[in-house]
């Protein structure tokens, strides 16, 4: 009698869960739809329908319509990039917070952003072009985290995850200093503004080629992390407990850090520094669906994608000029995070 009653409660919960997903998915679709029309060049729904029809039906013929170019080559890749980057930063934030058992950790904690910024500044300084910036920045972001991991594995004192975080801060500082050095020596009329703008974060220069660069690492890492969703729950209780429960934490940590770093670096290499998404969205997702990674990861993807798309749409349509995306995410993210803190009960719920 009692068991059947409990079963019914669980079933109700599952239904509620699906409603929650449906809600988030609807929001995401609605935002995607609306953001197609908004921007420097407003495009009407009829125009979009025509462009899509032309693309689908007469794909052989090149369409030299400026509206079509704006939509197909600028707006659409930008929307997809916003969804991908928002999702990537949110998952990696959620995952980093779990393995470091700390809800205050953000995805650039191990130096990924600083490394990526260094790479971008280097590529701008030597005029290696957009593609060059993306690739060098991606490589340097990974390199920074690799250095952090390598050095921290040689430090034998204290709690290993604390050592890792501290090492990450030092490595991040070194790369940030190098960025400043590059800025100091850069040509102030041409290179310096380019570096500065890159660091502010923006989706303006996004092309299909940028998406090609990041889509594979993002999808593969997300799948791997989703497969490890249950073990991610266990490691947030601490290494020793996780080991006693049967988890090989050493191997797990390497895989998880690698995937999360790949996510952060792929995103940051393309977009520049976009702060706060990886910190705020996991919190919001946890408050919405609970801390179980089974649901936390998909919800982080949906919420992160929606959030960045919303902010990017605002960045290009609020003022006559483009507002750098990184500034806007911080301006919205930081106060929102403070609001969440004032509402948080025990245990970051």
């Amino acid at each position, binding site marked *: 009698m*009692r*068991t059947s009653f*409990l079963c019914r*409660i*669980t079933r109700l919960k599952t239904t509620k869960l699906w409603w929650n997903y449906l809600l988030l998915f609807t929001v995401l679709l609605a935002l995607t739809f609306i953001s197609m029309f908004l921007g420097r060049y407003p495009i009407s729904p009829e125009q979009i329908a025509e462009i899509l029809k032309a693309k689908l039906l007469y794909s052989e013929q090149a369409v030299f319509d400026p509206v079509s170019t704006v939509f197909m080559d600028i707006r659409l890749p930008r929307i997809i990039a916003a969804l991908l980057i928002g999702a990537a930063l949110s998952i990696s934030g959620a995952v980093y*917070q*779990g393995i470091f*058992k*700390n*809800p205050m950790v953000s995805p650039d904690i191990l130096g990924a952003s600083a490394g990526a910024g260094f790479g971008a500044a280097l590529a701008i300084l030597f005029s290696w072009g957009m593609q060059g910036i993306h690739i060098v920045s991606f490589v340097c972001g990974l390199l920074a985290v690799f250095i952090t991991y390598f050095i921290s594995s040689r430090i034998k004192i204290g709690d290993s995850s604390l050592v890792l975080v501290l090492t990450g801060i030092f490595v991040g500082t070194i790369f940030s200093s190098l960025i400043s050095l590059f800025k100091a020596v850069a040509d102030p009329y041409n290179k310096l503004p380019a570096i500065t703008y890159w660091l502010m974060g923006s989706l303006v220069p996004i092309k299909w080629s940028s998406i090609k660069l990041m889509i594979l690492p993002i999808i593969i890492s997300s799948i791997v992390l989703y*497969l*490890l*969703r*249950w*073990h991610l*729950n*266990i490691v*947030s*209780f*601490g290494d*020793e*407990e996780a*080991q*006693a*429960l*049967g*988890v*090989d934490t050493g191997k797990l940590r390497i895989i998880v850090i690698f995937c999360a770093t790949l996510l952060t670096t792929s995103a940051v290499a393309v977009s520049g520094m976009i702060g706060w998404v990886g910190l705020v969205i996991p919190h919001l997702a*946890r408050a919405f669906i*609970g*801390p*179980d990674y*089974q649901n936390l990861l998909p919800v982080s993807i949906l919420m992160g994608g929606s959030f960045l798309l919303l902010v990017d749409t605002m960045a290009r349509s609020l003022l006559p000029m483009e507002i750098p995306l990184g500034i806007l995410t911080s301006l919205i993210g930081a106060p929102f995070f403070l609001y969440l803190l004032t509402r948080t*009960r*025990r*245990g*970051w*719920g």
Partner: protein
Amino acid sequence: MKLELKNIAFAYEKTNEVLRDVSLEVEAGEVLCLLGPNGAGKTTLFKSILGLLKPSKGKVLINGKNVCDYTRKKLAHYLGYVPQNHIPPFPYRVLDVVLMGRTAHINNFAVPSSVDVEIAREAMRRLNICHLENRNYAEISGGERQLVLIARALAQKPGILILDEPTANLDFGNQLRILKHIKKLAESGFAVVMSSHFPEHAFYCCSKVAVMQKGRIILVGKPEEVITGRNLKEIYGVEVEVAEIERKGSTYRVCIPSVV
């Protein structure tokens, strides 16, 4: 199920051995209570048993096989660990925490199934904490959290339970309730190793007491043999009288400290 420790030594730094020549044996149905002052090496010993630290000498055997030869996952089928309760950084549901005990039994890329949920509920039923199922683990009381951690270890279906100071930070009633559960678990066939700072607790539920001091086991035996006024004076450096009291035909032992 049998747990054996054979001449274990461990040192964090080469010159300073934290454990020296520790040998113990626990069998199914027994409760071994580990007593000893702070810093005697109890936690280090537990970590060696759990395979978290590799002893520099000697070996830990489960059913005759060295724990270092088990994979983490396989070892979790034999050893259940109940840590001291602490609040995790995220607000998991009680049922989810208990389900974590099933990790060693499920595929690395899978999540617990409805069978696992039933096993977790069964473990909670055993400790009378079914009503906590949907509560936030971070918000229940310390005594309830301790029971949840024991339920998690039971859901793991091990033969040996290791409990690190299961009564620490609990109120009087909860301490006794936990000890009663431990006694029942041993009667149902578990081999139990626990540590405690209360010698009296050993009288309540333990069949064997081992006293550690400076990394060595200095005394092993039945509670009434080991816990005597003289021994307590030697271990803790305080005057205590162990008295026998007759009640309803049984003999009980209590510690009477000379506080003043």
